[in-house]
Each structure stands twice: as C-alpha cells, then as structure tokens.
C-alpha cells in the first residue's frame, strides 16, 4: 500500500484535533492555577535583564547542561581502534546512556559493554565484576583488544584497574599477552573531551610500552616517513573522509590515530559485523617513529599531545578544528611544513572555488549576529569562520570549562581572536555556563542565528532564533555528521547550511514584496 488511503493521522496532526485540544483544556484544572497575566509576567521577567543578572550569578545548579561526561568520550576513543571493545567499569546505567547517546547521534549501533557493578561491588570493590566482565565479553564479542574506562562510581570506591587486570591474567581469564588498555575517567572532573583524551593516551601509551619499540622519530624507516594525525572527539565521520582526501592530495603517508569513522559509517551489507575499521593496533607503536604528529583538537588532546612530544619525543603541531578558509590554510601549511611537501594545486584550486562561493553569499552573511555553543576547539574554528565571513559572534558559551593548551587558555585565545577583528568587538565568551544562561543571552540581546548542537533548540525556540546544528550531539536531524565541516569542502558545507537557513528565514517571514525568486 503506497498511499495513505485510509487517512490515519500521525500523532502530530491527530492531537491537534479539537477533541484533544479540549482534553488538554480540561486538564488545566490540575495545574497550579495562575492567571494568564501572571504567566505573561513571569515569562516577561524571565526575559528581562534583571533576571539575566540573577541567572548569571547562579552558582549551584546546572540547567540544561551542554556537556557529557568523561567515559562517553572514552567509549568513542576506544571505537577508533581496530576490533577494540569499549568496556565501561561502573554500574550499568552509564553505559546504556553512552550507547544510546552515541547511537542517536550517528544513527549506528554502538558496541560497548559494562561491568554492571551493583551494591556488593560498591562495598567490596568491583574486582570480581571486572574479571567476570572480561571473561564474558571476550568470549561473547571476540575483540582483539579491550579498552577499559571507569565511571564516577568506580572512582569513588577507588578501584585499581591495573591490579584488577593483572589479577584477571593471573586467574587465566585472559592470557598474559591479551591487550587491555585502560584509563581513569571520573565524571566529576572534566567532560567528554577530557575522557576522549584520557583513552587515546591510554591506548597509545599502552600499545607502545608493551611493544618494546624504542621511539626514533623520523627514523627513515617506513614509519619514519609517515605523519600521525589525530582528529580528537570528532562527531563528524565526514571529517575523516575530508582529511583523507587532503592527505591523499599531498601524497603523503599517514596514520590516523583513533579513527572511529568506520564504526560510525559502515555499509548495510546485510550482516552486522560488530567492529568496523579503526586504527590498526600494530600501527600504534610504529607511530612513535613517525615524522611528526598533527593534532586537530589541541584543547581536547592536551594529555595525549604531552605524551607524544614527551615520551615519543616527536615533533607536534596542534591546531583547533580547521574550519573556514583561514583555518584550512593553516592546516595545509602545517602539513606542508611537517612533511616538506608542497601544497598540491588541486587544493589551491578548490580553495579558489570556495572563496568564490563565500563571495556569492557574503551579502547575506555580513553583519549577521550569531550565538555559538560548542566544545573549545570547535568554537575556535567557528569563531574564525564567522569572522572571515563578516558574521559577528555575539554570545559564545563553552560549557566544558576553561581548558588550556601550552598555558594559553581557551577563553584567552577566543577573546584574542575576536579582538583582532572588527567583527568580534561585541562578543563575550562564557566558559562553564549552560544553555539556560544562553537562553538569557538570546532573549536579552537578540541575534540573527544560533549555531550549536540539538540541545540548543529549546533556548533558540524561546528566543525565536533559527538554529544551525553543528557539533555534538545532533539528535534531531539526519546525516549531518556524514558531511565534512573541515577543509575547504567543509567550509562550503557550513556556508550552505548557514546561508540557506538565513534565506529560508527570509522566505518564511516575507510574504509581500520581499518574497522574491532570485536571491
């Protein structure tokens, strides 16, 4: 049956029918009754400057958070390695949340298991759970490596992963050689990005140490000609593809450290395989001999970067997410510098095309006031992009704290970036604030556009600001993560997203003389 012959209504249209509306009216009697006027007054107050001040002096409650916890990042990091099973040591709920959170964003399954600690574990420690869990999961899901992270519960009771894993080996649950990487990721510090960092560092250092290889950066052997690249907590599978395209154009050899794009963009072949793609485990110790390492999320990957430049004694270039023309220019210049290879003409050409596209759209972007929400590295990229298109960032919120890299704090860098442009003069950067703060900002000081994750949709709706969904998580739109936002191609995607949202607005709000065919 291909058409709706019987006209069965779905819930959106059905529940708008008179009888349901009436039903809702009847229910009002149960609600704390207050007059229309009171409601209007309260609403008006919540939009006032006076309330905004109160809201910003709020210390002790978070309203509508815009960050996830450390282990969620660790799960994503673990999925970046070949046949690796993310293993969450804690009670069962956290893992269920991570799986649905990540799956709702990528629309793909998330293989990840939990030690399902219960009360006895809370009292006696989670060793038995960990040992049983290793035995069960290795038998069930046949991973080639297990990557364990902790939750806040395991941290509070002080479980010692290293000795537990050792005991599992002694008991013969896993063999002496079986690789088990781990990291500590209490959720009462940091956020998903810190957890991502901890797991990447955990896996790199573990595989390197056990290999017995001694790092000789740029040693001239095969791996010595390679470049290591890290994307960080990357919600866009399309960004991996874009990066590969760029590196391919340079014709350089490279290893991506932590590539979860396989797991989160696998083909429908009729058979679910559990593990897809990922960085080969054997490539990790070899990566210590590489030419250099390029990090595309410097704030996110802080500890990993320290490890690479320290223990591997390797040259390291750390950028923020390369968005926009300038951001991509820096990326290409850096690759060129690290590898000694010239920037290929194809990319220069592509650059020209995207600059052309930006010029085509610039009348609609110039002077548009925007609000931005995201993780630190994404925000640095987005600010840069906005400034080069003539959009004016006004409110910027970074929930997950004031991360620093090489003694430069995110907030300082963002402010310096803004101060250097005439389009950044109005901006304020808030760290550690939530989306309820953002709501106040949007209501008090109107903007034309909000850019951020799906979570921002409530505040944007209250303030009647169109939202362009960028970042993590994006639950309510499909396939956004399949399109890159980095590189020149990504810049073009971002541009079309933004400019077409603005044009749609124009059409929606102009029915008269301004309802034009050509824009």
């Amino acid at each position, binding site marked *: *049956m*291909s058409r709706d012959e*019987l006209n*069965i209504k*779905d*819930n959106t249209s*059905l529940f708008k029918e008179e009888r349901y509306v009436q*039903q*809702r009216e009847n229910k009002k*009697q*149960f*609600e*704390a009754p207050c007059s229309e006027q009171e409601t209007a007054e309260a609403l008006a107050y919540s939009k006032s400057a006076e309330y905004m001040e109160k809201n910003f002096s709020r210390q*002790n*409650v*978070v*309203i*509508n*958070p815009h*960050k*996830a*916890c450390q*282990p969620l990042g660790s799960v994503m990091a673990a999925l970046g390695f070949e046949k690796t099973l993310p293993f969450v040591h*804690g*009670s*069962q*709920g*956290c893992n*269920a*949340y991570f799986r*649905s*959170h990540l799956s*709702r964003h990528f629309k793909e*399954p998330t293989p990840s*298991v*939990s030690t*399902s*600690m*219960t*009360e006895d574990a*809370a009292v006696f420690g989670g060793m038995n759970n960990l040992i*049983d869990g290793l*035995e*069960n*999961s290795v038998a*069930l899901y046949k991973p080639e490596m297990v990557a364990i992270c902790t939750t*806040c*519960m395991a941290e*509070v009771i002080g479980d010692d992963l290293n000795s537990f894993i050792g005991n599992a080996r002694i008991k013969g649950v896993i063999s002496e050689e079986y690789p088990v990487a781990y990291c500590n990721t*209490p*959720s*009462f*510090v940091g*956020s998903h990005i810190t957890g991502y960092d901890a797991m990447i560092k955990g896996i790199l250092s573990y595989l390197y140490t056990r290999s017995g290889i001694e790092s000789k950066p740029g040693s001239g052997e095969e791996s010595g000609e390679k470049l290591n690249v890290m994307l960080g907590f990357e919600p866009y599978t399309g960004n991996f593809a874009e990066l590969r395209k760029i590196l391919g154009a340079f014709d350089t050899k490279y290893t991506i450290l932590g590539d979860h794009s396989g797991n989160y963009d696998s083909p*429908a072949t*009729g*058979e*679910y395989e*559990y593990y897809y793609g990922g960085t080969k485990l054997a490539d990790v110790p070899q990566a210590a001999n590489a030419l250099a390492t390029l990090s595309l999320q410097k704030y996110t990957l802080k500890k990993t970067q320290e490890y690479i430049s320290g223990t591997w004694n390797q040259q390291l270039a750390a950028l923020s997410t390369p968005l926009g023309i300038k951001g991509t220019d820096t990326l290409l210049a850096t690759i060129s510098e690290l590898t000694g290879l010239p920037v290929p003409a194809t990319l220069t050409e592509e650059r020209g095309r995207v600059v052309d596209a930006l010029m085509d759209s610039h009348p609609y972007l110039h002077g548009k006031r925007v609000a931005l929400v995201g993780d630190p590295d994404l925000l640095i990229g987005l600010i840069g992009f906005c400034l080069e298109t003539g959009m004016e960032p006004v409110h910027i919120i970074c929930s997950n704290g004031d991360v620093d890299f090489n003694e430069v704090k995110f907030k300082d860098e963002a402010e310096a970036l803004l101060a250097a442009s005439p389009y950044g003069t109005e901006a304020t950067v808030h760290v550690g604030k939530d989306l309820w703060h953002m709501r106040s900002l949007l209501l008090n000081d109107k903007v034309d556009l909000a850019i951020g994750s799906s979570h921002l949709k409530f505040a944007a709706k209250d303030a009647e600001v169109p939202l362009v969904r960028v970042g993590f998580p994006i*639950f309510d739109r499909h396939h956004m993560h399949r399109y890159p936002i980095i590189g020149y191609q990504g810049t073009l995607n971002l541009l079309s997203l933004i400019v077409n949202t603005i044009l749609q607005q124009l059409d929606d709000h102009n029915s008269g003389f301004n309802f034009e065919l050509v824009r």
Partner: protein
Amino acid sequence: MDPLRQDEFDSQACGSMAPKAKPCPRPKPGEAAGGCSFDGAQITLLPIMDAAHLVHGPIACAGNSWESRGTLSSGPSLSQYGFATDLTDSDIIFGGEKKLKDSIDYIAGRFAPPAIFVYSTCVTALIGEDMDAVCKEAADRIGIPVIPVNSPGFVGSKNLGNRLAGDALLQYVIGTGEPEPETDLGVNLIGEYNIAGEMWDIEKLMNSAGIAVTSRITGDARYKEITWAHRARVNMVVCSRALLGLAREMESRYGIPYFEGSFYGAKETTYSLRQMAYLMNDREMERRVDRLTEREEARLSQELRPYRKLLRGKRAVLYTGGVKSWSVISALKELGVQVVGVGTNKSTEDDVRRIADRVGDDTEYIPEGGASRIIKTVRERKADIMIAGGRNMYVAMKEQIPFIDINQERHKAYAGYEGLLRLAKELTYSLANPIWKLAASPAPWDKEAPPYDR
C-alpha cells in the same frame, strides 16, 4: 550509607506474589546492559510535567540523558529541563549537600514548581549524602514538597528503579492531597507514560464511555492529581513489571481494587475498558462500554481489512519488555501477523505465562539480550520484520531487516483502536518500502541477473 532496599526487593516477586516468581534479572558483567535504576526512576517520574526533576550527582547521569524521552506534555514543560547539581571532585570530598540545598532553593525561587523531585545517583549514594534530610529541611523551609528518590544506578536494573519511584510516590505524594469536591472520581492509570501521546488516545476512549481519569501515574501528569490518587475507585496497571507493587500497596492501604491490562490490540483494549466498568460496579457504565467497544471494534475491523490482507501470514520477532511482550502479540495476531520469536528478558513469570497463552508452540523465547541473539532468531525463523527498541534498530538496519520501534523512543501512538490501525499501517509501510529490495540486490556489476527484481 543508607540501607538500600535491594534485598527486600529481590526476595520479593517482581510481577506477582507467587512464590516461584523470578527476581529482577541482574545484568551480567561484560554485556551491553540496559538502563540503571536511576534511569528507571527518572522514566517513571519525568512525566509529572509540572514538577522540577533535579539530578544530584556528577554530570554523567543528567548530561547524558536530559530531554531524550518521548513522553509528551499537553501543557507544562518544566519536566523537560535538565537540572543537575553537577558535582565536581571537591564536592565529592567535602560533600554536595550545600550545593543540593542551594540548587533546590534556586529552582523553587525561579520556577515555582508544585514539587521538586531529587534523584540520588551512584556517587551521591556512595559518599553518603543525607538526601532525605536535605529534602525534608528544604521542604519545610520553602513550603513545597521536595521528594527524595533514592534509586542510585548501582542498586540494579531500570525496572527496580521504576519500583523505587513508585515507592517514593507512595511515601511522599499519594494521599497528601484531596480532589475538589465536585470531581468525578474514576480510574488511576498506572504505568502509562504517554509515549507519542498514547495516553491521550486512551483518555479519549475512557471519556467516551463516561469513565473519568482520576490520576495519571504518570503519563502527562500534574503533581497535584497524584496527591489525590488514593481517592480513585479503580487502579489499572498498564505496565505490570514496573508499578504493580504500587497498585498492590494502594489496595491494602486504601482498598482500591486493581487489575492489569493493556491497550495494545482491540481485544485488550475492550477487555481493559470492560474491566474498569466492572470494577467500578456501575451497570450503566458497563452498558456504555459495551456499546462503545462494539461500535469501535466494528469500525476498526472494517478499516483494517486492506491491511489484514497485506499482513496475513507475515512473521515477526518481538523484542520488548514488560506488558508489551504479551499485549503486542495480541495486537499482531489480530492483524494476522505471526510472532515467531519473543524476548522474555524483561518479563515477569506472569508475563511469560501470558505470552505462552498467546503464541504457538514453535515460537522461540529469547531469554537474554544482545542484538546478535535477536538477529539469529530473525534469520532462523525466517521472520519478515523485527519489532524492538531503539538501541537494536541500527543493528537491524545493518542486517537489512524491516523494523518497527515499539519502545520509549517511538514517535507513533499504538494504543487503543486507532493505535492498532496505526500499527497496521506502520507494519505495512515498513515491510513494503522499496529500500529492502534495493538493499538486497547487489550492484548491477556484481551479479548476472538484472537488479531490483527479487
């Protein structure tokens, strides 16, 4: 640490008082487990739409979960807000009680909710926060109910959390208010969370039969209506696994008779409405129900005819929990769909008995979770469609199996007579979509036969 009621619960039957009833299943370490007790408690109480729901703990529990359930509200939206104390390491060391108190005060001052529910989480339970005391002190001071929900994740499964939330309602809410004198008293709906608006369909049916809803526990509920739930004349338990204990306790405390029922499928719907009228002991109402159900069933069977033709003989694997495990079977049977595999992981003994009453001998029972186990059943039993929850959806897609989401993330209302029609439509659409043929044919250069003609 506060004594948590795990033992008491585990020795007690989940779905019935029968001595052999199995306890709530404990997840096995090393498996991809479902939600925790905190999640379960939250799920039960979040549909109290005008209340504030504050999560006391580090960012994990709230940051990964706020506003991700499809329980619809017909008015207030406070329950959609993600409130959290977001404890940091120094709070873990010095205690988070001050932060909790301040958070409660802020919420009360700014949002003026009729009540605040405060949820403990793994960490706050472990570090021994005296949540009950903080809540009590705050309630006395600010003059609105502040209700502690002691259901940290580690005490066990989501289902246990449902029941702990029921406990909190019994202890702090039910019986604390009185309905307006002229209120028409009727039935409490227990364990119907208004996913995709299903509650509204049910209410419409009840209203057409002249049956009043006294309290919704807790789909699209208002705090106040739950305070007078003890005045209802009948309790209907819609999800038995979760809140049967609540109904049982209300029977012994307040003498309210209860029954377990469902609204999936025409038969179950008719049965439930009849049962309400019967327990209300109102002949006139019974007659009205009979007239209504006869009329609705006749109309439905008329409208279902084209779908039935398309669905007859189709085979389905059903993987869901609680009441849906058996009631959806009835619904599918009415459509001519045969259930060849059914999950029993989250079912009580009673549920399993009900499943057995409704399926044939060759139906496979799937006792344990894991996508691969379900997929195996689909393949072996040559099923045409998989009906399960969102977490299994993407695996089904990889395996190119037509799929319908039946659990909390669904966006379609399947309850009542109209719901069955909608279910029929969704099944037909899902099965008939051209994508399955396209997906199953390899690229033209990979095989001899022309594509798309499978």
